[in-house]
């Protein structure tokens, strides 16, 4: 039935992801760092959606797993090797262990109590990482590579500079191709493609989970936990499994952040980062497959591109207008861009929660259905 549609969705998704350096070129976002962030936070959001989108358990603490993943990866780079494979594996494992622990404690409660528990536990992790655990985390500055790290598996490199993260010799930050297409200078680098493949893999896993009995039961947890228990299903291990899976996704994302840029800062564990992933999932469309990735791209785009629009750039935009209109426009727009990007994001988020509980995906479907006049339900099945 919708098996074909899933496959189609996966193929379209993979194509978009693989061609992202080209697709995003007109938006000014097609540079390796931001593209990797899109992919990484996409993975984070996909994982979070497995917990929040399916079971409805709202965790504010997933930033802790992101941070733990990053710390593990950087430690692996410091001690063992600059190859990303052991680093990512350790990130996933450690984040899994952490999420098992935190999940076990916080899933004893549900509803807002669960949210507050995750918030409290994550905030504890952040506070500890920022100060008292400094030997492990390097506190305020964040854990970085140093010239004198042991790196027992790697051959001694050039003494004067830090080695780069690599995937069996392919350096993550190496730009392997930079053609000019349609007048845009494009940059294709290994790091992005490593992240992209993992994103596609994560997307595939998430499709499989959504369509599995496991996913069905998670959705049942969200709609009626009482009935589920009286149906003979023990909901707690299911939610715990979902929690751990999403924690491992978060760990993978954290590890990838470290492979892109081998620095792990404590801010990654702050509850506001946990709040950010909530924003991503809700903005994109919770419980949908592609929504979380969309939301992640949206927010990271805001953070990195919108925040750089200063008055000078605005004057450039409106330069064709008469000067007084230009100035007026700059005056009107500037509180919402550049340093005001938080404001725009908050307002947008509210609008989505109020009018589009299904997020941007739902909005797109509504528009799509209106435009094509096609059967709305069919469209919904397609994306879900």
């Amino acid at each position, binding site marked *: 039935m919708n098996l074909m549609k899933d496959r189609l969705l996966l193929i379209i998704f993979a194509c978009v992801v693989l061609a992202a350096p080209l697709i995003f070129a007109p938006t000014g976002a097609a540079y390796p*760092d931001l593209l990797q962030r899109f992919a990484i936070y996409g993975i984070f959001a996909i994982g979070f959606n497995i917990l929040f989108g399916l079971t409805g358990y709202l965790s504010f603490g997933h930033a802790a797993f992101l941070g733990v993943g990053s710390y593990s990866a950087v430690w692996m780079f410091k001690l063992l090797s600059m190859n990303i494979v052991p680093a990512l594996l350790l990130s996933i494992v450690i984040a899994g262990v952490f999420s098992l622990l935190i999940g076990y404690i916080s899933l004893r409660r549900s509803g807002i109590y669960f949210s507050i528990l995750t918030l409290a536990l994550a905030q504890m992790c952040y506070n500890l990482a920022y100060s008292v655990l400094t030997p492990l985390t390097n506190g*305020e*500055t*964040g854990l970085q590579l140093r010239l004198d790290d042991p790196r027992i598996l790697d051959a001694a490199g050039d003494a004067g500079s830090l080695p780069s993260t690599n995937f069996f010799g392919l350096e993550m930050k*190496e730009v392997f191709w*930079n053609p000019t297409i349609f007048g845009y200078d494009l940059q294709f680098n290994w790091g992005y493609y490593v992240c992209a493949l993992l994103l596609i893999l994560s997307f595939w896993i998430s499709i499989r989970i959504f369509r599995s009995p496991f996913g069905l039961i998670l959705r049942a947890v969200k709609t009626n936990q009482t009935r589920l228990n009286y149906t003979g299903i023990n909901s707690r291990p299911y939610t715990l499994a979902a929690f751990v899976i999403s924690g491992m996704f978060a760990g993978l994302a954290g590890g990838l952040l470290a492979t892109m840029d081998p620095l792990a*800062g404590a801010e990654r564990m702050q509850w506001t980062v946990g709040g950010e992933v909530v924003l991503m999932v809700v903005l994109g469309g919770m419980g949908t497959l592609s929504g979380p990735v969309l939301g992640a791209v949206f927010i990271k785009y805001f953070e990195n591109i919108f925040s*750089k629009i200063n008055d000078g750039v605005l004057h450039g935009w409106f330069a064709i207008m008469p000067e007084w209109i230009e100035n007026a426009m700059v005056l009107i727009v500037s509180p919402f861009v550049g340093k005001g990007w938080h404001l725009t994001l908050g307002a947008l988020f509210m609008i989505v929660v109020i009018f589009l509980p299904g997020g941007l995906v739902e909005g797109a479907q509504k528009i799509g259905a209106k435009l094509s006049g096609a059967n709305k339900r069919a469209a919904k099945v397609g994306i879900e």
Partner: protein
Amino acid sequence: MSKLIMNRRGLLKTGAAVGAGMAMPTILTAASHAGYTNAPTGSTVTLGFNVPQTGAYADEGADELRAYELAVKHLNGQGDGGMMNTFSSKELKGNGILGKEVAFVTGDTQTKSDAARASAQSMIQKDGAVMITGGSSSGVAIAVQGLCQEAGVIFMAGLTHSNDTTGKDKKANGFRHFFNGYMSAAALAPVLAEMYGEDRNAYHLTADYTWGWTQQESIQAATEAKGWNTVANVLTPLTTTDFSSYVAPVLNSGADILVLNHYGGNMINSLTSAVQFGLRDKMVNGKNFEIVVPLYSRLMARGAGENVKGIFGSTNWHWSLQDEGSKAFVQSFGQEYGFPPSQAAHTVYCQTLLYADACERAGTHNPCGVAEALEGFKFSGLGNGDVEYRAEDHQCFKDVLVVKGKENPTSEFDLLEVVQVTPRAQVEYPADHPMFAGGALGSCNAGG
């Protein structure tokens, strides 16, 4: 694929550092020729101003941006030229840098290492910035400095006061104009000993993170050398907003001095609490109880309001200085924006001029050339007397100001008065001082 191989070969040939694949594609072809990241090809050269625009330090960031914009104007020959006229080096002609007009991009560090690096990275990868500068905390400065080192661009740190920036985390591509915890302590201790006597018992409240620790360590060592006794050092969590429970036990501890090793919101709140508790009206051990804030900034003093009155601290620069450079800068900034500049504004303005000047003297934008021109560079005319960028650790050495909260401010900007301009010689330290040990500059990286 063939391109990749070529790049690598090119790298090996020029002997540039390994691991520089971060090439900037827009300019890659040119970059390969020039041999360094983001070599400017057109008629402009792009600088990246990476400052906090959201978060608690946003106002400091805004002041930094004002100063950057002013500096760019002056470099491009607009405005009154500001400190370019008083600067001892006369290379800058008001025609941009090396004849290229100065353009800039701005970004938001959010005062988070992560966000700051993302923002700097986008300036390097997307906008082709050849130099990154700015920031308002040591964590951010160290993180971005590391990034610039790897990417092969120059980093001119903004506000960063931790010893580590030019201590254990120093980098060949990074330079700091701002002073540091050690220098604050070295300048402050003699004044304190003179004002309050040598037989004093100090109680420290210290922000529980790297900057706080190095600051506390420095001030404790410096005051103990003057004969003070340290009663206690209590670490306060970064997220504390109400310091009353930390301040309450102070009076009863036998201490007669309270040292607040806090910055930003922490400092405003802890000082406010300390004054509320009436500590300064008390007599302990037969002496008047005093409070010291080692690192001051005018914006913070403004946040703490009348509580700063009479409280000693140190600062990098203040607009009431009467040397020609400072006067020219205050005049220029004041005409432009209607109020006097902060020390953050002064620092970043100087750094922009210094960078431009170094390019001119080196005759290239190549970070290694620029770094070489900056290393050991001696100059004057930018406030703070005769200044040197030390080659060994890229720390700037200059006069440090000991200031006191003004008792009768005449305006909302007139909050601090300069008590003493501590000469540079008094705050200097050997590059291998134990408080700065543990790191290596490494070698300059020009990227590729």
